[in-house]
């Protein structure tokens, strides 16, 4: 290991017979680390801003679905430090709706126009001198909404009830596409068994630690936008942004930063905000900057699609699948946002996974719901697909009484048939799947795991083993997405296919080599791997290569396929850099050949020298050859081109457009992953513990084993979260419930074990270096592998994720004994607020004063104002009706509500109803309390019963705390009432801010 930390070429002497050891394939630690480890690396939010930059804060919808009746921005605009407030009206003036990937009349504007369709949808933007002031001003924007019924599940969308989100479409199923490959009916007739399953995959996402950042400027004179953002690609989105901003692509200059804090696909979804900030810069006439906060990210950035999959397999007696019927319905959220419906089509060529299944019928549907629009997310569509396929394999085994591993073995594509074309057109390019499975079971110690299972079961413990075998697609065919269109529609739209990658290699006059690629890395070590590849080509040291991964659409070579997604780096980008470097080297060889009087074929590059193969003494330094093109182009032999810079474009040969019969090879290559998982489930806590995890990968040629294992470990950790913890949770009424990292549970070091990683290398015949992608495999294989292990442990079917203790407990525990009816007080009726969180409660307090005195206090607006927590004054708005500003703090957030308070049902001095409703930038609240007063020996017994609903940001962030916060506020009200009536004053305790925050976050008692 330590020997490898030095580049092998550094050890090579620059002597007469120079040598450079191979760099490609070596476990070279990353070159990008030093800057990061010392805090020098620059991420987007660290980069300088232009003078006069305004800071943006976004007002978002508290409702899942509502009509916008009006927006009043006057008060916000008048605030000190506020330069502009931008709304959907401005979007209508300066922008156009986003292009949509299917033919259906749906309009998606960057800022809501007329209607909001998901909680967190951007409604308005405040631009101010700093972010604090901008957020203050959000509070002053008044939006009037009329809540609409919500659609919160795929099943609800499929059922056809419910308000259509996009009235012009008329249905919440916005696209249905049937496909047929092979004779499925014949397969079903011939088969001994029909085995089916239905699964539901949840919404989740990879939540990179860095949120979105956009800096935008508009050049009035040129009519051009310039944006710096941590966008990740695909650059197929660039024309979508340019069209939305109503400019040609050349007038939307997009730059990417040198470092990005993770993406996993998610940073693709910054693009609507690039458009919003473009509009903002144009309206304000000044540069603008926006940094997304974590609540915004969790609530409204992006998500994997939720998917319902129905499978029915025709199965032979020994467990072979002869034909498959598949129905997939993706929940794409409120809008079909580019590049959707890619989630549903990315795996179209590998719908049958790693298996030889000759006949396949598919129906794909797209459902819209009142949730965040979906997008790229590590494993893109694969987690959803394989959750269904591999659950089916397990089910076939259980149904037929076979070993699940045997069912997998019998169906795997045999090595002899490689490259194998699947029913839907995928070309599985290389690999010996069966050999990989055998190696994994032996080297992964399956026998020992089975012994552990036997022992555990003999002791009555819940222990299970699961498997998953998948193909991992990489380098997406830009044409796969058009499979959603009919052949006819495709003909009209023109062919789409391929996956152009680009790289530029240049030499400077001192012999330094620079590589630029349109790859937008987010931590995958592109600099290191590109240095390895290019240094090896030129026989140089790693340190001689400078890799620049910043990106500028106005100056760099790029295509719509550029960017960091679909695991395209190793196969496509590194390979293209190799092509560019090799071309440049060949030109340098020609130059050197004329100076050394040998043929170019005899020129070798190693150890920093350029020399004749037969006579190493006949040599020049690399820098001398490199300099020649700069300093002395005039002395080059006739017809010799100077070797200064080479740009290569490369597209994988097998990527064609979909055929008339919808045959599509959706990716250039397909790695193989086989996983074994052993779990034990605690029967008391219902918690799943991963006892051992084995993951075998064949990702073609490995360029750097450290990076490969890093990618596997990272995807595995994401998958553990997907399988066991993570879900974007919504209430059935539309409220969003996972607004913090205390609600959306990301696995920590205590939850992620270290898997056993095994490798085989079957080079891809289709990529320049034989490498395939590796960073997404476990996001596809691991969630279902864990689910299969849990199913084996419980002897039950598992049809959804995540397998939280609550979900498992519901499976293993007997239902609790019902509460005796006598204990159930009639539950108060929950108010009918769409998108709210219902709260109910009741209580009793004794106030040391007569009912008449208490009554007088309650009916006096001054007194009442003093009792209401966070209220300074009540303005009379009618008989016993008031308007007030109330500041309420829930958890880490405080909101200033504009409230209407009303006293009704007056029965002096015995009973009244106190009701109120209010709204703020943080959401809305509404509730009422019925209060009765009764004289006792000690004064007045006050009995109250309330019901309330809270929605928006407060519900998303403080969901866990709302009940206790409500009780606390009511407690404060009565403490003040008691104090006012002459009782002991409430003791004011004031813990430190930190203690309070930690307490509210549930991190401290």
């Amino acid at each position, binding site marked *: 290991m330590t020997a490898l930390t030095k580049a092998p070429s550094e050890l090579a002497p620059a002597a007469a017979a120079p040598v450079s050891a191979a760099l490609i394939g070596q476990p070279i630690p990353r070159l990008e680390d030093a800057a990061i480890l010392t805090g020098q690396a620059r991420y987007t939010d660290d980069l300088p801003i232009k003078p006069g930059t305004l800071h943006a804060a976004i007002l978002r919808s508290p409702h899942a679905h509502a009509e916008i009746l009006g927006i009043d921005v006057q008060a916000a605009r008048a605030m000190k430090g506020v330069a502009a407030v931008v709304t959907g009206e401005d979007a209508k003036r300066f922008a156009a709706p986003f292009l949509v990937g299917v033919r259906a009349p749906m309009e998606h504007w960057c800022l809501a126009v007329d209607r909001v369709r998901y909680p967190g949808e951007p409604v308005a933007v405040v631009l101010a001198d700093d972010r*604090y002031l901008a957020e203050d001003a959000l509070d002053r924007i008044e939006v009037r909404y009329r809540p609409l019924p919500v659609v919160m599940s795929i099943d609800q969308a499929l059922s056809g009830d419910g308000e259509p989100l996009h009235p012009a479409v008329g249905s919440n199923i916005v696209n249905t596409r049937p496909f047929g490959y092979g004779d499925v009916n014949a397969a079903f007739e011939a088969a001994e068994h029909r085995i089916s399953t239905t699964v539901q995959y949840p919404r989740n996402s990879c939540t990179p*630690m860095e949120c979105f950042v956009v800096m935008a400027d508009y050049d009035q004179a040129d009519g051009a936008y310039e944006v710096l953002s941590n966008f990740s690609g695909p650059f197929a989105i660039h024309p979508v942004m340019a069209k939305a901003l109503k400019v040609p692509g050349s007038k939307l200059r997009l730059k990417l930063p040198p470092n990005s804090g993770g993406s996993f696909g998610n940073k693709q979804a910054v693009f609507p905000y690039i458009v919003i900030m473009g509009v903002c810069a144009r309206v304000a006439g000044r540069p603008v900057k926006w940094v997304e906060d974590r609540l915004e990210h969790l609530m409204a950035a992006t998500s994997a699609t939720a998917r319902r999959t129905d499978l029915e397999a025709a199965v032979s007696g020994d467990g072979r699948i002869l034909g498959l019927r598949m129905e997939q319905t993706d929940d794409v959220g409120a809008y079909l946002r580019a590049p959707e419906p890619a989630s549903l089509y990315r795996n179209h060529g590998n719908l049958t996974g790693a298996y030889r299944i000759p006949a396949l019928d598919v129906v794909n549907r797209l459902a819209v719901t009142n949730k965040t629009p979906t997008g790229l997310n590590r494993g893109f569509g694969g987690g959803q697909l394989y959750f269904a396929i591999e659950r089916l394999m397990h089910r076939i085994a259980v149904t037929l009484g076979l070993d699940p591993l045997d069912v997998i073995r019998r169906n795997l594509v045999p090595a002899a048939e490689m490259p194998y074309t699947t029913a839907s057109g995928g070309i599985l390019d290389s690999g010996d799947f069966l050999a990989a499975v055998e190696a994994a079971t032996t080297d992964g110690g399956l026998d020992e795991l089975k012994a552990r299972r036997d022992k555990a079961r003999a002791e009555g413990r819940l222990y299970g083993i699961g498997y998953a075998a998948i193909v991992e697609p990489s380098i997406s065919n830009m044409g796969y997405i058009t499979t959603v269109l009919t052949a006819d529609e495709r003909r009209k739209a023109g062919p789409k296919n391929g996956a152009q990658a680009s790289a530029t290699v240049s030499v400077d006059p001192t012999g330094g080599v620079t590589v630029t690629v349109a790859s937008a890395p987010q931590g995958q070590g592109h600099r290191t791997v590109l240095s390895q590849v290019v240094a090896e080509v030129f026989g140089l040291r790693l340190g001689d290569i400078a890799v620049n991964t910043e990106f500028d659409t106005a100056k760099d070579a790029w295509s719509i396929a550029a960017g960091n997604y679909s695991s395209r780096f190793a196969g496509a980008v590194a390979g293209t850099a190799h092509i560019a470097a090799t071309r440049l080297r060949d030109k340098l060889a020609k130059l050197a050949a004329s100076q050394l009087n040998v043929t170019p074929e005899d020129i070798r590059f190693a150890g920093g020298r350029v020399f004749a193969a037969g006579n190493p003494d006949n040599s020049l330094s690399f820098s001398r050859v490199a300099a020649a093109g700069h300093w002395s182009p005039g002395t080059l032999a006739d017809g010799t081109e100077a070797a200064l810079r080479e740009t290569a474009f490369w597209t994988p040969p097998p990527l064609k457009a979909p055929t008339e019969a919808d045959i599509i090879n959706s990716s250039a290559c397909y790695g193989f992953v086989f996983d074994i998982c052993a779990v034990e489930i605690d029967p008391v806590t219902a918690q799943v513990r991963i006892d051992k995890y084995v993951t075998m990968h064949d990702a073609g040629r490995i360029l750097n084993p450290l990076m490969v294992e890093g990618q596997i470990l990272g995807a595995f950790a994401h998958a553990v979260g997907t399988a066991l913890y993570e879900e974007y949770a919504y209430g059935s009424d539309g409220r969003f419930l996972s607004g913090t990292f205390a609600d959306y549970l990301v696995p920590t*070091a205590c939850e992620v074990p*270290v898997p056993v990683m095994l490798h085989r290398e079957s080079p891809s015949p289709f990529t320049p270096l034989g490498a395939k992608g590796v960073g997404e495999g476990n996001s596809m294989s691991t969630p279902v592998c864990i689910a299969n292990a849990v199913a084996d442990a419980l002897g039950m079917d598992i049809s959804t994720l995540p397998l939280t203790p609550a979900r498992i407990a519901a499976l293993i525990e007997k239902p609790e004994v019902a509460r005796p009816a006598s204990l159930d007080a009639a539950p108060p009726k929950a108010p009918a607020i769409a998108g709210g969180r219902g709260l109910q409660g009741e209580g009793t307090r004794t106030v040391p004063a007569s009912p008449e005195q208490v009554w007088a206090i309650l009916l006096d607006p001054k007194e009442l104002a003093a009792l209401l927590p966070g209220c300074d004054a009540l303005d009379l708005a009618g008989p016993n009706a008031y308007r007030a500003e109330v500041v309420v703090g829930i958890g*880490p957030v405080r909101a200033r509500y504009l409230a209407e308070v009303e006293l009704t049902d007056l029965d002096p001095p015995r009973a009244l109803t106190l009701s109120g409703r209010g709204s703020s930038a943080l959401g809305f609240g509404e509730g009422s309390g019925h209060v009765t007063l009764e004289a006792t020996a000690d004064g007045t017994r006050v009995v109250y019963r309330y019901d309330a609903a809270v929605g928006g940001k407060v519900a998303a962030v403080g969901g866990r705390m709302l009940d206790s916060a409500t009780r606390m506020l009511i407690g404060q009200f009565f403490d003040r009432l008691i104090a006012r009536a002459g009782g002991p004053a409430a003791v004011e305790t004031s813990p430190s801010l930190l203690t309070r*925050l930690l307490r509210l976050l549930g991190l401290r008692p």
Partner: protein
Amino acid sequence: MPSLNAQTKHPVTITLNDGTRTGHASPRMLLSDFLRHELGAHGTKVGCEHGVCGACTIRLDGVAARACLTLAVQADGRRVDTVEGLAPDGRMTTLQDAFNRHHALQCGFCTAGILMSLSDYLERVPKPTETELRDMLSGHLCRCTGYAGIVRAVMDVTGQASGNADAKDASGRKEPGHV
């Protein structure tokens, strides 16, 4: 503490990694914003601004603290250590070195916070067991690495083999390291 006015910015002077720095902050300004945008010390990152992810961890008078849960004015007159101060002469510490060798970082957005927590923790607990270490690390979220390289790096610099017979390690590996 002097009484502060919400509307005005107050001078805040801290000892930042051995140098004295003064900036201005309104009372509500977070220490994370103050460091990053007022003093230009961008090494400290923010990942959640609600105290869960640990990305913003700095040392306040030597004790690891969340800069996003601390107000700049609370740090006035105190010592603040950030990632920029770990390797003052440009030579990385053994821990930073081990992070590189063991591929303990990818995007690096979580790294500064983890290094600052560890620099405090390892002074107090020089040889944590893997379970203790993972327990400490659970105050940090990393989305890239699966924590494996981070654990290996720390076990390495504390002179311990990683992953042997520990409940959290499902690899069955006896030695730290790769491949």
